[in-house]
């Protein structure tokens, strides 16, 4: 049995579980799965065992640092790790070894987490899936011919098989929530400004969020607690107390807004996904939430402004390398950056002006509502070979609206489709209401009973 972080933490605190044995179990699962799912760029099992032994010494001395002490985790390979390669899954940074840890890496290390390694990503969190990079693309462990979604692909796959109990992701247009949905785990994109992006390679700074992924919403809350907080080194970091992250906080009396037009009209989902959304709504209603429908701007309107923003900002980040050494990117990355290169200053500014208008209309449309619900993905994971390099401009997705708003949003598993692949729902809170999102995710997971099933 693979414990959740919450379960393992309780057992470690009670001296009923050794951090070393816990880590050895994760290493065994990593070794059993890695040849099929390619979740890791740089595994660090020896370092993990050394850190686990240190955690065990604290356990025996009664000096545990908290619920993450002795918990095996890993970081998406766009998070800087001092002395350990940080490649962004790209030949551009094949030899890159940072001098300092990213803020989240430092936060989890201080909490006692055990580093299992660095995880696969779409190239620079943008270009993927790609088959022409120095490392293979991560595969979905529920069916290795299927897409993990991106860009936090390695984190999604590694958490699903229990090679790690949690990991970092980054989310600019859905890169935490998408892989969480396709890999059957939980992942939260926190409120913008809650988690420092210091040391995380940027994709599009006005949309970039750092956040955690884990098997459950409760575990995401534990991980988020160790990476949230003000950091003057990140210009977007907010100097205000982090929200309370109590997954047992009551939902009764809160109002749930169903963005029905997103998943029924703007981008209709398949029957199994819709059933999962309706079942989740029923669970939250049973928990005492009042349910109403809400109408936001159309998904395509979010998509055009959001995607234009993302592509333009991404090209600005990569412009120098794209001009000087484009051959060191994979084809998918070059293609997507080239789209950004074709945008004008006016295109970008119109996207920013439309973004403001959309935000104001969304705030007005959700007055009196505490939580929103819609799809995370339209269906189960497609074949990895069916994902085109221009997929992001072919159809809208459910995830980028909440990057544009900066509101907290998470994906939780609702069950499995006909092909045995995971299904998910997306929960969205108002700004800084991350605790409510996690509480609702926890309620859904507890009621739907879908956390007992693992790949394989």
């Amino acid at each position, binding site marked *: 049995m693979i414990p959740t972080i919450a379960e393992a933490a309780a057992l470690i605190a009670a001296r009923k579980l050794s951090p070393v044995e816990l880590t050895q179990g994760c290493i065994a699962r990593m070794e059993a799965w890695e040849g099929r799912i390619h979740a890791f760029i740089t595994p660090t099992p020896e370092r993990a065992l050394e850190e686990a032994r240190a955690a065990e010494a604290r356990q025996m001395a009664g000096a545990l640092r908290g619920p993450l002490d002795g918990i095996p985790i890993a970081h998406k390979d766009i998070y800087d790790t001092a002395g350990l390669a940080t490649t962004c899954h790209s030949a551009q940074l094949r030899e890159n070894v940072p001098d300092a840890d990213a803020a989240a890496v430092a936060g989890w290390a201080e909490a006692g987490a055990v580093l299992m390694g660095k995880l696969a990503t779409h190239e620079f969190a943008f270009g993927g899936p790609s088959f022409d990079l120095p490392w293979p693309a991560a595969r979905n462990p529920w069916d290795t011919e299927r897409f993990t979604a991106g860009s936090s692909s390695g984190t999604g796959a590694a958490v699903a098989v229990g090679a790690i109990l949690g990991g970092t992701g980054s989310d600019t247009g859905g890169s935490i929530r998408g892989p969480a949905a396709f890999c059957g785990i939980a992942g939260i994109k926190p409120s913008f400004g809650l988690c420092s992006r210091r040391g995380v390679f940027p994709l599009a700074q006005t949309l970039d969020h750092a956040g955690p992924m884990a098997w459950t919403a409760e575990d995401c809350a534990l991980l988020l607690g160790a990476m949230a907080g003000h950091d003057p080194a990140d210009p977007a970091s907010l100097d205000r107390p982090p929200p309370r992250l109590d997954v047992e906080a009551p939902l009764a009396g809160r109002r749930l807004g169903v963005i029905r037009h997103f998943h029924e009209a703007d981008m209709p989902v398949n029957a199994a996904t819709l059933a999962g959304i309706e079942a989740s709504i029923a669970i939250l209603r049973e928990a005492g939430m009042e349910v109403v429908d809400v109408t936001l701007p159309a998904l395509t309107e979010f998509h055009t402004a959001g995607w234009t923003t993302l592509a333009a900002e991404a090209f600005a980040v990569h412009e120098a390398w794209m001009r000087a050494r484009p051959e060191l990117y994979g084809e998918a990355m070059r*293609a997507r950056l080239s*789209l950004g*290169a*074709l945008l004008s200053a006016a295109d970008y500014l119109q996207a920013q002006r*439309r*973004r*403001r208008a959309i935000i104001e209309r969304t705030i007005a449309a959700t007055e009196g509502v505490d939580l929103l619900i819609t799809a995370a993905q339209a269906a189960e994971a497609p074949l990895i070979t069916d994902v085109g390099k221009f997929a992001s401009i072919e159809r809208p997705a459910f995830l980028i609206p909440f990057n544009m708003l900066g509101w907290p949003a998470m994906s939780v598993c609702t069950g499995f489709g006909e092909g045995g692949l995971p299904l998910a729902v997306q929960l969205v809170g108002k700004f800084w209401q991350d605790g409510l999102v996690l509480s609702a995710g926890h309620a859904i997971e507890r009621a739907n009973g879908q956390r007992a099933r693992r790949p394989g």
Partner: protein
Amino acid sequence: MTAPLPPQEFALLLRRAGVTLPAAEAEALRLAHPRLQAMLEALRDPPNAPAIEPAFAFQPDGGRR
């Protein structure tokens, strides 16, 4: 959706953007370009009202008031 630009016109666009791509990738991008154009037209339909500021308005103090 509009038709793709003629190859020579599209090549000029890429040159102006400072992007150099292998021929096959440039051709795939040329064929995808009408979808990008359609998105950019949608950004302006309906037109953004003149008074709308960008999402992140200039703040002389860097937003640290």
